[in-house]
């Protein structure tokens, strides 16, 4: 029964919490840049304003892909918070991402398409580490089910430090934060304009923002799993990880895709796979 409540909570509250975190993110970022920054609720004001604008579109299919995108993100997060299989959560997230990429391709606009390809490269960089974390969590807890992983009771971070660091590394890619904001970013860039979101305007752009909040909560939920033995520690860990992301975002310039792909795979192999091998030999000796 509790699975249903947590799922409903996720569907209803994730945009609120996600929006608040984004608001805090903007304030912290502003302080780091010696600015005052917007009010905490600014992300919500932005979204409401976007909903009020005209829905510009280059073809009539294009904004509908975003509906599919949103549905699958919510589905993925719901499965996670219902305590289901972590692998299918990741697979559903991939389906969702795929719809975003397809939306960008369907525009037949050069800037969108560059963004779409870069988004694919981002998926290619990040996906192995996501799935590897699921395998790592399985190796310790003996289950892929989020509910059983979360109620395992022991601090998983002690078994999987390498996997955790790897996951935090690719979290920057998944959250599209600098230095890995290749496919799109908060500020327009010369060679990319707005990348994958170039052709979205008004309500469509608002949907993307909401989707981003859902996705953020899901990803932070995955971070939480490593500290689930103690909810307080878990929440602190989440806030700490997110703060690190903000610091990294503010101190790094965007890198080229090659560096992203190579570094992400290298970290996945050295820290992630290395961790799993050590764990395997410790468990089987």
């Amino acid at each position: 029964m509790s699975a249903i409540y947590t799922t409903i909570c996720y569907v209803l509250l994730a945009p609120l919490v996600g929006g608040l975190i984004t608001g805090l993110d903007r304030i912290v970022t502003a302080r780091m840049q010696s600015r005052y920054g917007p009010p905490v609720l600014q992300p919500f004001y932005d979204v409401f304003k976007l909903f009020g604008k005209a829905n510009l579109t280059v073809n009539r299919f294009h904004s509908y892909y975003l509906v599919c995108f949103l549905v699958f993100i919510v589905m993925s997060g719901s499965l996670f918070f219902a305590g289901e299989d972590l692998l299918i959560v990741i697979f559903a997230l991939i389906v969702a991402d795929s719809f975003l990429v397809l939306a960008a391709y369907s525009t037949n606009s050069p800037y969108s398409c560059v963004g779409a390809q870069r988004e694919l490269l981002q998926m290619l960089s990040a996906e192995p580490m996501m799935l590897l974390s699921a395998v790592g969590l399985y190796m310790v807890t003996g289950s892929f089910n989020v509910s059983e992983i979360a109620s395992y009771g022991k601090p998983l971070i002690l078994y999987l430090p390498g996997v955790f660091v790897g996951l935090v590394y690719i979290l920057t890619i998944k959250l599209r934060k600098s230095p890995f904001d290749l496919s799109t970013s908060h500020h327009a860039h010369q060679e990319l304009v707005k990348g994958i979101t170039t052709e979205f305007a008004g309500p469509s752009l608002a949907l993307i923002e909401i989707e981003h909040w859902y996705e953020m909560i899901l990803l932070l939920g995955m971070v939480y799993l490593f500290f689930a033995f103690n909810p307080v520690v878990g929440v602190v860990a989440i806030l700490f990880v997110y703060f690190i992301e903000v610091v990294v975002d503010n101190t790094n310039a965007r890198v080229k895709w090659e560096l992203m792909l190579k570094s992400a795979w290298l970290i996945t192999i050295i820290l992630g796979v290395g961790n799993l091998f050590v764990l395997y030999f410790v468990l089987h000796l």
Partner: protein
Amino acid sequence: MGLHMNWILFLILFPLLPAVLLLFFRSVSIQKWIVLVASALVCAGSIGLAVTCTQAKGQYFPITSDIFNKLIVAGDIVLALVFLYVCRRLPLKRYWIPLLAIVQYAAVVWFDLSGRVPETTHYIFVDNLSVIMALVIGIVGSIIAVYTIGYMEHYHKKHPEIPDRRGKFIATTFLFFFAMYGIIFSNTITWIYFFWEITTLCSFIMIGYSRTKEAVHNSFRALWMLLVGGLAFAAAILYASSICGSVDLRQLLAMDKSVVMLPILLMSFAGINKAAQFPFAKWLLGAMVAPTPSSALLHSSTMVKAGVYIVLRCAPVLHDTAAGAMVALVGGLSFVAASALAVSQRDAKLVLAYSTIGNLGMIILCAGIGSHLTLWAAVLLIIFHALAKALMFLCVGTVEQMTGSRDIEKMHGLITRMPLLTIIMLVGIAGMFLAPFGMLISKWAVIEALATRNPAFPVIVIFGGSLMLFFWMKWMGKLIAVTGPQPRQDEGIGIEWFALTGLAVLTTLAVPLYPFVGIHMIEPLYGFSPMLNWNVIWIVGIMLGLILILPLGFFIHWKNLVHVEPYLCGANVTDTHQFMGSLGSARDWSFRNCYIDKYFSEEKLFRGALVGSIVLLILMFSMEKL
């Protein structure tokens, strides 16, 4: 029991009838009816067998009369002569191709005639794995046969320079069915060997069909590579009969591992060879010069599936051995290398070929590990891969006929030119990698099954899978770009629609049907799998529902949309494919996918994969005693 035997004999022998008839009747309309009726019967026969006969433990059908055995020996001799005949025009320096055939047949026939092959009465065998294979061959194969009729019509119109021997071509298709049913229902390895070599001959004929220089070259390459596998199979027969004292496959599998390891490894080697794994990948890549239906056949329901089938049969012996792990690593290497190579390919058929090698690699990986859960996943992979891959080949073949190109870049905006075909193609691509379609269910099962073992294996699947996602997605993106009104190009597709829509529906239907197949056929064979948990089935069901219902929204005309032109960073020119450059002149823009030649090209990766796989194969044989 007698009834089952009749189904099996019907399935093995019946395809010979249309094969012979097609050689004699030259009239196209008669050929068409022969193919339609025969395909329907083959398909019905396979379904009939599946409905009446599900055998968890497997059932033998003893044949006491020796006549069949004599027929097989006679067949071997005839086949050897045919191989020598097709090699008659080869230059002398390629003497080793006929030599490969001579050596293996001389040895096998001599062993047989001199009575060195042990007697057995258990020639025919059926269990659920054979039944599933029969369904795949019967349903997917016969749909491809129907497609062939329409395709060859167009093919010969487009290529008047190629002699019209379509009767022979379709006859070869049915000969293929004969050989495939022979392989999956035979229990003695001498019989399997006979049918095994027929599939080699069939692919040789199909690949060389157009008789262009490239086709002939590729067909001989396929011939010698596949004969190497045949040679290994022949060696397995010799070893099994002289050392193990039996050619009965089930008896061999039940023997002590130390005794039987070598012949099993030789057969696995033959399977790896037939499944076009590295280092033998080249023959399948060359096979794309043939008319598309033959590629569809080779890649999906026949040929390569014979290869993975035999390794799957050998799995109980390979389980928990060092040599078995090497078999798994050959598959894993092929999976990762082929998926990486596919990233750099622009030719749609080459992408499909590499993805076949990759997916079969995943099946070999599962079979080499050989635990119940991995075998489960392997069977799912066989079913789903056959459907989606056949569909993809038929789509690409049709696109090539209609547009004259199979370059993925030229498929840009295909959805505006051939909407229906593109939607079918999208189903095929989604079937290859996207949740909740079949291949993803299988990948899920594979990762779950592998996670309990050495982490090297899940890592292989995860990295290969990510590369696979990458190349399928960028292809999909090309297809769905909406480029504005374009002339329709899908006129003139006739009977092919039946095959295309049929396979698209089956690719989708296979998803909700997998629990039934799992419960009735795979579970009795390999035990329970977590893929049959109600939670899993529910999730797959919900996702499938979403992915089928959501796209209906594309047909809704949203009212509040304001149409604009794509942003081109400056003043647009009236033509959306041009923009106003900084010097005030209109300039074209175009957009291409990335192929990352720098890292994933054939020059960079192919040789490494060859060397790696050869090393693994050497290790495999040297670890035979471990």
